[in-house]
């Protein structure tokens, strides 16, 4: 095959893989310089992924299925591996026959894909073989036998109201052990999910999560909308990451269409991504303080968050930056007065944020609650493939803005904070460092804002193109993978929010901590339920 347009970083990997698995790879296609697909049989999956992990330090970032029975008479499974050092993605595509709808689990080797494999089982009806815990995940236990992401299942199918068991929880037994159920409706203004704590005295022995209460059929919904409307749906995957998800989706479509957003649009996108990071990080810092009863700090944080949201509204018309993203670029340009408002925000936030951080650092009772609380050890984080803030607080030196530069991040040098401690304090510290870095990045982007058009014409995207779009959202890495269908529509859209990857880490981080510390540990991860459940 011709590898001439594969990036020079990725080419040695592709060549080595081609040699190593000679005769077992059916084909190899490279639709983009940093996105290569190998097609093979199912029996290659375990060896392929293990080899890439061992030899090239690849990360298995997502596993998903695609119902290709109409064209190829099979389901396809995709295993997407990120090669951070080579700045590229290698994917393995294998067929699953509808006559024998099962596939072998990799979850014993790659714990981070445990839930994603079960999602494939739930939504496509492909049975997992050898999975350590092959129970239902996305669909609660007593859902009827339906496979919503199969093409012969109608999105509008009306199911009777849910009855029965949602999850058969494991029993934890022993003298003095009791279980504390919490949720799905929580005490605070947060999303729904069920937590079952098993405790002996105060320390938590075991935490089981039952999520997917807000499963909305989002991935199926993508298949029913014209492409431009899908951008609005992407904004509603996780409201606090509206712009990041919409942009990841736009990246995927633009890559499928072979179009790049103009320079000015790429910079405006980056500024919006940093504004989203700013307001969420500052809100989280405040909320962490509230959870250890330092409410005054949160009041200042909420005041700053409000300040940012108003600038968001002034710049994009919406406080959560909705409506700004569009295929091929961005919708709204910023005039001198809007850019001035942005500059004033940055100037004002610097001393305000410093004084907020000083307030926290000066409160020994606050620090006492944050330090050594909810520790996620680096080795556990690595095994679970934990990404984003939580990953960086536990030794994972990774950020898509630096490793897979998107939008305008190729024009700046992003400093990535990494700590080894992995407690609540260091998840807060990663946010503190990133807020300062965001302010600096916004300054750099605003100072070098190129002139020119706001959007490139995307037009109708031909059918059967596949593409992966990514964005480093404030919470962590976001992936959107699409396959296009005729009539400017989608045959499949797989959405991977960082929360889906990180939830199991919360169960690990809380072990040995007391229940009263759970809110602050949970907040220090601040994972999206909607992004997970979709």
């Amino acid at each position, binding site marked *: 095959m011709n590898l001439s347009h594969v990036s020079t970083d990725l080419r040695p990997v592709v060549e080595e893989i081609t040699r190593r698995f000679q005769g077992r790879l059916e084909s190899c296609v490279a639709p983009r310089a940093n996105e290569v697909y190998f097609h093979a049989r199912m029996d290659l999956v375990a060896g392929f992924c293990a080899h890439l992990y061992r030899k090239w330090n690849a990360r298995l970032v997502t596993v998903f299925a695609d119902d290709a029975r109409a064209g190829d008479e099979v389901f396809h499974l995709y295993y997407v591996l990120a090669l951070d050092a080579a700045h590229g993605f290698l994917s393995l595509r294998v067929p699953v026959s509808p006559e024998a709808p099962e596939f072998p689990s990799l979850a014993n080797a790659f714990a981070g894909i445990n839930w994603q494999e079960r999602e494939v089982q739930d939504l496509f009806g492909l049975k997992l073989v050898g999975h350590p815990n092959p129970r239902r995940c996305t669909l609660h236990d007593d859902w009827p036998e339906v496979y919503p992401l199969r093409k012969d299942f109608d999105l509008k199918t*009306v199911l009777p109201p849910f009855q029965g068991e949602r999850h058969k929880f494991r029993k934890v037994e022993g003298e003095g052990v009791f279980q504390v159920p919490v949720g799905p409706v929580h005490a605070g203004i947060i999303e729904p999910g069920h937590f079952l704590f098993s405790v002996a005295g105060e320390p938590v022995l075991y935490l089981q999560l039952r999520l997917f209460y807000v499963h909305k059929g989002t991935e199926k919904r993508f298949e029913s909308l014209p492409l431009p409307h899908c951008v609005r749906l992407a904004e509603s995957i996780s409201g606090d990451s509206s712009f990041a998800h919409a942009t990841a989706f736009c990246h995927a479509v633009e890559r499928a269409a072979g179009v790049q957003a103009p320079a000015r649009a790429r910079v405006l996108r980056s500024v919006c991504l940093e504004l989203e990071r700013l307001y969420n990080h500052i809100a989280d810092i405040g909320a962490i303080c509230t959870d250890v009863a330092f409410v*005054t700090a949160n009041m200042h944080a909420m005041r700053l968050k409000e300040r940012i949201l108003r600038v968001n509204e002034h710049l994009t018309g919406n406080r959560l930056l909705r*409506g700004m993203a569009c295929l091929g670029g961005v919708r709204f340009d910023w005039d001198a007065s809007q850019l001035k408002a942005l500059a004033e925000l940055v100037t004002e936030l610097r001393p305000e944020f410093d004084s907020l951080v000083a307030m926290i650092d000066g409160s020994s009772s606050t620090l006492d609650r944050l330090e050594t609380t909810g520790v996620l050890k680096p080795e556990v984080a690595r095994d679970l493939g934990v990404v984003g803030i939580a990953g960086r607080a536990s030794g994972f030196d990774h950020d898509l803005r630096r490793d897979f530069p998107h939008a305008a991040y190729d024009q700046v040098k992003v400093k990535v904070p990494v700590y080894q401690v992995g407690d609540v304090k260091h998840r807060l510290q990663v946010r503190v460092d990133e807020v300062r870095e965001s302010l600096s990045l916004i300054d750099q982007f605003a100072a070098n804002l190129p002139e020119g058009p706001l959007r490139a014409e995307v037009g109708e995207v031909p059918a059967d193109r596949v593409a992966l779009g990514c964005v480093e959202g404030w919470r962590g890495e976001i992936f959107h993978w699409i396959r296009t269908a005729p009539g400017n529509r989608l045959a499949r859209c797989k959405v991977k929010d960082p929360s889906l990857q990180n939830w199991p880490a919360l169960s690990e981080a809380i072990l040995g901590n007391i229940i009263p510390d759970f809110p602050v540990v949970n907040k220090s991860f601040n994972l999206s339920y*909607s992004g997970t459940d979709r």
Partner: protein
Amino acid sequence: MLGILGKSISTGIVTTSYPAAPPDVSSHARGRPEIDWANWKDVRPAAAICPTGAISYQEANGQRLVQLDLARCVFCGLCAEVDKAIRMTNVCECAARRHEALIFIARYCLNDDGTHHRHLDGPTTPGASPLGNSPPAPAASLDSLGRQIEQRADQIFGRSLHIREVDAGSCNGCEVEIVGLNSPVYDVERFGIHFVASPRHADLLLVTGPVTRNMELALKKTYDATPDPRLVVAVGACGCSGGIFGVNYATRGAVDAVIPVDVYIPGCPPTPHALLHGILLAMGRLQRESGH
């Protein structure tokens, strides 16, 4: 400690004077769309570009019925980009006591080329008398509304309304803004409004949606656990109408498909001003229904 006090004093009061003063909103903000109903020539481009079906039409007997449903609107402004008859205002106060009050229908004569002409009537809201171009709650009345509400709330609740927020399926965008109500900028406690941890302590459920199949039962149980008299406020395009998700295998759509709703607050998400407006409206309704 002294530093913390000093910081509070130097920061001063940051609380908005809303509703005594109109909301302080950027001129770039996208709020309720305004339509030049009389001169509207063709609904089709706007209907085609609307991602949630907030603008739709039906044709029969040479006439065209055009509908704008604010409960579905996500205020993206795409319709205004393709149709000069539509303009996005920055008005965020859209809450209404019935879904029908958010629906505006106008009737036109249909032309052979697919455009329409001669405005026959409308916009009207179903079952209501014809309204002007600017339907729900004009901002000017809010000052008095706010003062009335305070007095009424004082009478009924002894200066306190307790809210239980229920996320029945939202994307968490609405939650981002609802949390803001507790910030010093909006400070709902100045109205005696508190967010409480249990529905058993609540007078009002603030529900975001679409209601998922997996949350339907939890929402019903939460409603049943809330003592009478109780109010339900549906929040956001999804809570009011199902939004961009609509009704599908995993969602039931709007909150009122599952429990009775007293007030609808459109928006995607509604801003804290819009939320405040809707909650105050709901408090007024409680007063009336409890027979005072």
